[in-house]
């Protein structure tokens, strides 16, 4: 079937098999490989992207379901001048990543969290990220990064 999805602002149209998952559309059709597949049971969150502004696990959305929608991946997070999103900056400053595999999904989940809750507590961050697995960091610095990113993320949104 024919699917058109706006990925990071660029419309991508393709004829795909009905069963094509959104994550495979993003990786193989749009050729944006930052978004990773970490499991096959919607458990790990490595494939998290924003679908019309809300975070979804793109391994559990059909490309067909996203037809006509907007998808944002970590590649599309920086602003037009290439400056990193405050969440990306904070992950760097707080050493919130090691091997990097969970990172794109984790960053998108964090962006979505701060959109819904601009000034979360540590406990709220931990609960909100419960669907995103990281095997390297023990989550310690990820949580610190999200808390650190909150003020600048609010500013960016209101700017």
């Amino acid at each position: 079937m024919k699917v058109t999805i706006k990925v990071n602002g660029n419309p991508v149209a393709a004829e795909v098999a009905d069963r094509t998952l959104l994550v495979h559309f993003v990786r193989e059709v749009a050729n944006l490989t930052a978004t990773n597949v970490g499991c096959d049971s919607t458990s790990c969150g490595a494939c998290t992207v924003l679908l019309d502004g809300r975070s979804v696990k793109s391994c559990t959305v059909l490309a067909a379901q996203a037809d006509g929608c907007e998808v944002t991946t970590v590649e599309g997070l920086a602003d037009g001048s290439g400056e990193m999103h405050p969440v990306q900056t904070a992950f760097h400053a707080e050493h919130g990543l090691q091997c990097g595999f969970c990172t794109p999904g984790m960053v998108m989940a964090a962006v979505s969290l701060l959109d819904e809750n601009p000034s979360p507590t540590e406990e709220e961050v931990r609960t909100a990220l419960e669907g995103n697995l990281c095997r390297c960091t023990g989550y310690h610095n990820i949580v610190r990064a999200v808390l650190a990113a909150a003020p600048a993320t609010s500013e960016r949104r209101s700017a």
Partner: protein
Amino acid sequence: MSILGTRVVRTEDPRLLTAGGTYVDDLRLPELSDAARVTFVRSPMAHAKITGMDTDAARQAPGVLAVLTVRDMDDLTPPPPPDPDAEIIEGAPMPIGGLWSEPLLAVDRVRYVGEPVAMVITSDSYQGEDAAELVSVDYEPLPAVIGIGTALRTDTLLFPDTESNVPVTSGEATDDAIFDGCDAVAEATIVNQRLAPMPMEGRAAAARFEDGKLTYWASTQNAQISRFILAGVLGMDPGTIRVITPDVGGGFGAKVGIDRDAILVAWAARKTGRALRWVETRSENLVGMTHGRAQEQTVKIGGTSDGRVLAYRLDVVQDTGAYPRMSGFLPFLTKLMAVGPYDIANVQTKSRVVVTNTTPISAYRGAGRPEATAAVERAMDLFAAEIGLDPGEVRRKNLIPSDKFPYTTPTGATYDTGDYVTALDKALEGAGYAELRAEQQRRRERGDVLQLGIGLSSYVEITAADAAAGETARLAVHGDGTATVYTGSSAHGQGHHTAWAMLVQSELGIPMADVTVIHGDTDLIPEGIGTYGSRSLQLGGVAVHKAALDVKEQARKVAADMLEAAETDLELDADSGTWQVRGDPGTRRGWAEVATHAGEDGLVAYVQFSGGGATFPFGSHVAVVEVDTETGKVRLIRHVTVDDAGTVVNPVLAEGQRHGGIAQGVAQALLEEMIYDADGNPLTGTLADYAAITADVLPSFELVQSETPTDINPLGVKGIGEAGTIGATPAVQNAVVDAVSHLGVRHIDMPTTPSRVWAAIDDATQNGEAR
């Protein structure tokens, strides 16, 4: 001022955060533009004879380019016939082979669920999943050998030409005389459960064979070892193989070298003449990638009523899964580190390795040392409970005093440097131990539902155990003043690129931003070992450091020639990266000028550093848990650690290693376990079932700093990668037992799930008195 020891954020991160890493599945190279997909047909049976296989339907399915089975392996030299008299080397972390050999594809028998049986090659991965379903394999079931007890008792042999399911036995006969003279003795049988390493990126490989040359990309910790393995299996000259490690999404020991599945991808690329790519699914990963731990331990500890331990015995049985891929290495390390940080006069150890119809066992973060620490730390608490003394006090009485180093243990390890008592005291102080005990007492007196548990663990571990194998570094300073480091070490999240650039900047004054670090390409770096056993910094890092010193001396000669001065009068200002004749700023020359003057040969140093030996990091952890005595639910509320790995090059990276390890340790203590039913079916074969630890069940960790340099290497560094799993696991387990010890509970096996904790409380209270 040197950059070493300062907090430097990683150079790796901007790329990973904005474009994502480039893992095997992300490679968009011309060489792989037409790569077909490999899908494995895996055994659904734990133990069975293969009586037939029909691949016709699969071959005719859409997109199928080839279906390969063991019958297609006519291009490989069969291994020499097994020599039943061949000596098994217990401490060699390699497959035993011979009668216990593991095939690449199953031949006439499968021995675990997930064992590769056939390969389907298709244009895309969806087609591969479909076609693999169409391969029809006839299995004649055999009794599954599941669990250590069954493996030791059953008549069913996994390898019918052998005499038992026990490939390796080692150690002395036990003699209870060592416990003579003890006022108190405690014994326990402890399960150190099977875990899935579960790096976020599973296993993956890609291969292209062209004009007699193999180019191979793999998610591995060791490019050079992988090349060695491929050369051996495929019968190729290593010079005709190039192994490249792109970004690797975590390894944790389970990506040391390459597994049979990944080897098969290279073979199939040669066989079919097609570029191939294989990326396993998580469900494959949880049964196909090696598991870790899987020991049963019997401990006995005895000592005086005032807390001095006199004797300790550790009897280990290692479940090694279906194939002994690591010989007796894991229990060998467990026995070597049996006494931990304690000064115990009489020690006995023994071990057996058994095969079972489960996924093979190999290294997982700590590899034998967390198991040793878990055993002795549980034993210490059992002993403390037996004599009614505080577990902190009992540990302090038995820790090796700081004036006894180097210290050789009864099991033959020589600990280099340490200050174990200080580490314990710092951890207890950081936790506010006395106040915690007071709060615990108040809750006990009130009979609160939520009881407080305080768990201690003091540990020492061995890192760079294979220091003699060394590590390589090549450092080149170029005519534009930039530098390139080629390291034999291998990164999969640790931050090698940042740390190695810091080492160069520190010695030479070339800014980190001008230092490029390259790893994991055997054409560029033919010699190297890679990463495991917390060896990187103390071998690979020291090699970089020594290469920088070498380049510095070369540059001194060049600068002396340039400035027509005596070499001894030349000095390098490592802050600005400039050379000058001492006391004459007018002679200043930067690295670009010196390297240019050096001419065609340039400034290049190659170092193969073999360390003076293993190093022994140490520390103490304090875990604080709340246990709901009505439901058995455990919550870790604080975790305080002292992890001393010698001199710290970059606290940001060292802390990151500690955090990740702690979380994996907590995961073993509280949650994770790879479970099989009696027929050998994995019950935790997806991430919906395997209880990988998540952010919401962890607190932030409280890290206390401590640096006791080693004298084994010039940087004074030890390994930090495995401290967390070694130290945290028993601290948390001990905390859970401690929370309910006043009810009479003395031991709860890991993972300390609510049902186990509840059952332990129920057992103890129904018995009416402490056991």
